[in-house]
Every structure is written in C-alpha cells, then in structure tokens.
C-alpha cells in the first residue's frame, strides 16, 4: 500500500478519493430527491379533491292514467 503515498502517485490517489466522495454524496442526494418527488406525487394524488358526481335521483314518471287509478 506504500506505493499509494509515493509523491508521483499520491496526487492521483487524492483526486480519486475526492471524486469517489463526491460521487457518493451525489448519489445520496439523487436518491433523496427521487424519493421526495415520489412521495410528493403520492400525497398530491391522495389529497386531490374528489371528482364531483351528479346528485340527481331517478324516479319513474307518474302518468295521468296512473294518477287516476
């Protein structure tokens, strides 16, 4: 492992470590971002107002003959 600390190599090792750390942070943020977006979509769907339905009732029409009988 000592070759990693060699002055000619150390700068590349440091760059690689910093890059891996950033990619890890980025992946973590990306995952939270996607989860948040999904959760918000579900909550929006749940809390969206219900579609209004007609409140009329159907009744058989009483004809003149039926009223007389």
């Amino acid at each position, binding site marked *: 492992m000592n070759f990693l600390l060699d002055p000619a190599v150390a700068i590349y090792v440091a760059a690689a470590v910093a890059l891996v750390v950033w990619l890890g942070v980025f992946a973590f943020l990306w995952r*939270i971002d996607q989860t948040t977006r999904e959760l918000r979509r579900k909550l929006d769907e749940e809390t969206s107002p219900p579609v209004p339905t007609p409140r009329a009732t159907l009744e058989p029409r009483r004809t003149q003959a039926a009223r007389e009988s």
Partner: protein
Amino acid sequence: MGAVSRLAPIAKLLLGVWLAGVVVAMFLVVPQYVGLGDAGRIIIMHVPTAWITTAAFTVSAVYSALYLWRRSPAHDANAVAAAEAGFLFCVLATVTGSIFAQIVWGTFWNWDPRETSILVLLLIYAAYFALRSAIDEPLRRRRLSAAYNLFAAVTMPFLVFVAPRVAESSLHPNCAFIQGSKCEGIVLNAGGIKIGQLGDVILELKGLEQRDDFAVATVEVRTPGLAERITLQPTLELASGRPADRPEFPGQQFLLALEEADVATGEALLNIEAPGTGLLSNSRTLWTFMAANLGFLGLFIWLYRLRADVLVLQERLAERRGTYELPA
C-alpha cells in the same frame, strides 16, 4: 409536468458532472503554488464554500422576512433549509481552513480573527436551530425563529467581511482576493518607531544600510509568546525598487519583504507575504476557482430546495396523521 420539472433532473446530472470535473481539475489541472505546494489547491474548495455560506444565510434571511410578512409555512421551510445548507457550507469552510492552517501555520486552530469570527458565526446559527427545536408550538416557533434569523443575518457580514479585516493581527491571506485589507505592511524607522506587528509576529527594525545596489534591513522577529526570536535580513534592489531577498519567518511559510527603504532616514516599509497571495493570477487556477464557485452555488440551490421540500412533506404527513388519529 412543466418544463422546469422536466429540465430539473438534467440540470442535476449536469451539476454532478460539473463538480466532478472541478474535483479532478483541483488536483490535476491547478498547478502547485510556490511556497505552498499541493496545499494551495484547497483554496478551490475553501473560498467558494465560505462565499456560498454568506449567500445561503442571506437567502435564509430573505425567506424569514417573507415569512414575517406573509406568514406562509413554505417560506419558513425555505428559511430553515437555506440556513441548514449555509451551516453545512460554513463547517466545510472552517474545516478546509483548519487544514490549510495546519500546513501553513503549523496548527489547526490559532484563534486568528478569521477563525474566531467564523466560529462565532457558527454558534449564532447553532443557536437558531436550538431555538427552533426548543419551541413546540409551530406558529410561535416560526415567528420567533424568523425574527432571530433576521438579527443573525445582520451579524453575518460584520463577522465575515469586517471583523477579520479591522483586526490588528491576522494571518489569513486576505490579499489573495481583496487588495488593501491589512496588506499595506508597516513602516518602521531605525531611529524612531522601530517596533511593530505583522500578523502574529512582532518586528523590531535593528538597522537599515546600503550594501552595493541593495538596501538591507536587519529585523528581529519574535513569534507569539516569544517562542522564537530570530534576525532576518530582507533586501530591496534600489535600482528597480523591488524586494530582492525575502527570508522566511521562523516555523512558518510566510515571507518578510522589504518593499520600500530610505537609507538616509532609516525608514523601511516591511510587509508579510502570505502563501495564497496572488494565487489567482494563474489562469488555470482562476478558471477552476470560478467553476467551483458556480458548481457550489448550484449544489447549494439543489440542497436547500430539496431540504425545503422534505420539510414541507414532513408537515403534510404530520397533518395527515393528525387527521387520521381524530376520533370517529
């Protein structure tokens, strides 16, 4: 789905690639700085994080003011999120600064005015979060913390920009970016006022003489606590008026320069050359530095918007849970 929503993931991916490029450039494109070696690269991280800190706390204060005006919970969420992101960037600036201090000054923490002021800033915003967590009632918590946040924001420019520059003694290389802040050096006279202070060191001008084409100052340097006492002899080329020999301060990478000299009157202008001074005169360093500023700004916007979204969602979930728990 709006155009902004469609473009947001692409912008975030671009930001990831952009900052990855900055990280690579910081190590492989930015050249070593004379006197600092590889340690100079930390400036690419340290300064942008410090600048984003001030931007974040300003954004937080604006949202707090908006909350006090309109009483919208979303504004409060944005204020908290921006303050949290600012706090994170402030910690990053402090840590990277401490690493720089260890390499250049030989200690992680020196109670330098810059270090002390950033610590006070961190404590002020830590108190903001403590205040929020101490109040259970949401409306009161939002109102009080918004008012506190405005006061905290007032102290921020003073602590970041003013205090470290008016302090008599600072080792922080302000001259790298802003000329004139404690960069003018001190004038000593071998026959008059001969003792002065530059950074943390005390200088005593023992003599000023001409040797051939050079003015030579004999300066006794005492480090803090008189731990070390050494005599340095910076020189000035009289024909060109430029400093020639710049001896190094004991145990530090700072150089002592004789910038002006009047051998007849014994008057000398002595200055400290801190590592980092003139760092951005290299174009590769400058462009990487600018790219880092842009990248960190994008990262801050993403972070605080995401955190504000999470806070709003938390509140909506809590409200829903409360509704479901109501007796039938």
